[in-house]
């Protein structure tokens, strides 16, 4: 199984979720994160001082999938999260040794 981690722009979350469900994904876990990257941050003002805020709000989507569907899932994320502008984000792929569904105790791909 693979853990696919996508870091995308917050307003793309709904689109990505829909693309993933269309691609057959049944579950995912989402975290609000702060991203630092090529896309530069913004300036904040406070009583005459300017503060550079380097981090931008991003959303991290983690989805564990069976190896066979990984490519399809990655493609779905790429298509739905793409705007072509800097800061669109990354997808990271890593191996997962096992998965377990707490409710039933199932493990492996059935647990997803």
């Amino acid at each position, binding site marked *: 199984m693979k853990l696919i981690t996508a870091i995308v722009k917050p307003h793309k979350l*709904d689109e990505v979720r829909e693309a993933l469900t269309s691609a057959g994904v049944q579950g995912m876990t989402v975290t609000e994160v702060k991203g630092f990257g090529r896309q530069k941050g913004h300036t904040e003002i*406070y009583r005459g001082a*300017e503060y550079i805020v380097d981090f931008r709000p991003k959303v991290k989507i983690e989805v564990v999938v069976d190896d066979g569907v990984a490519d399809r899932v990655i493609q779905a994320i790429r298509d739905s999260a793409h705007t072509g502008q800097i800061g669109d984000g990354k997808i990271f792929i890593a191996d997962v040794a096992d998965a377990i569904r707490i409710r039933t105790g199932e493990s492996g791909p059935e647990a997803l």
Partner: protein
Amino acid sequence: MLSNRLPARHSARLPSIAAIAVAAFLLPGGASAQEIDTGDTAWMLTSTALVLFMTLPGLALFYAGLVHTRNVMSVLMHVVAIACVASVLWFIFGYGLAFGEGNAWIGSLDRAFLRGMTTESVVEKMPESVFFMYQMTFAIITPCLIVGAYVERIRFSAVLVFNALWLLIVYFPVAHWVWGAGGWLFGEGPRAEGGIRDFAGGLVVHTTAGVSAIVMAVLLRNRHGFPQEIKPPHMPGLAVMGAAMLWVGWFGFNAGSALASGQGAGMAMTATHLAAATASLVWMGIEWMRHGKASVVGIVTGTIAGLATVTPASGFIGPMGGFLIGIAAGVVCYFVTQFVKQRLRIDDSLDVFAVHGAGGMLGVLLTSFLASPTFQGLGFAENMTAASHFVVQLKGVVIVAAWSAVATWVLVKVTQALVGLRVSKEEEYEGLDITAHGERAYDL
């Protein structure tokens, strides 16, 4: 001659005082030997504070709670900045244009920069400075109400330009028409014969703001992703807080419009409160029936609907009238929100038209019937009946709504030409807080 904003009945009850007050403003420099009443003055000072409190922080919080996290500061900014602009304009020429002696259409510039107001000037039984301040708080809140129509997508410079123009072209004139002594709506026939009745601003405040809001929303177009992607309020508790402050402050708005500390104020407060409470429960009931549960934003939206609707009527009706207006407001405003957003698909984002426009107009019309003693109302002027009075009120609604719509249409176009209306799509997604004001609402 400076008007005293006396609704017909009111002035009928206090003819001699009205005469004195009017006389005062004919004297050079506004000097007058008339005495103030410390009790009336105390209530009007308090009412002034209450109505300012409605806008700041009341309305600001009410609106800020309903938008998304990334636009919270921008909404607060709109309200604060408009309040400041309106205050300064009111001082420079607004007061004179609204209440100064002019013609049927507009007051005058003689009172610009409060020229002629001394520590001796008296209006009704209060210092003129108090009258000036009290009326100013209405000029503050009215354009702020419109904010709800254009949140989350407008340029801040457009907010400033549009609202300054709007005060000049819509608010000051309409205030003069309806509340100015020589105003053409106010003056249509001597008051005793039944001029238009708008006790605390169903026309001047709510109809102007509500109608302008929807025109603005149409011209500005919907937020990106409206309606599918629009999310519920980022912090409804803020909206509840704001609504509660509006409720309390509205006592100053309506009961203060009696311009005295007496029976008129007490009755207006009673009718106002009962309308608010009743409309809240009606809105709650409708939601419960339709969704199987009732939301907190829903119940307080009902509160505001009740308050807006009772505003024009509050000085003419009794407690039962307030109760009945509450029922009408809850039902009508609820369904207008549905109609505007779900049928017409107009992104009047925080339902300014549905709550204030529809509510205000409804209240003006209902005033004709509920002023009847049948409903504990305070009655009609001589020669007037509910029916004949309804015609007067309807005329007022049509004229004020039409003027607000047309003027707003033009002013939006002018604003667009001068500074542009909307932010870019990217800025909209990023949020106005950071892009327009360099701030984030929460760093927890």
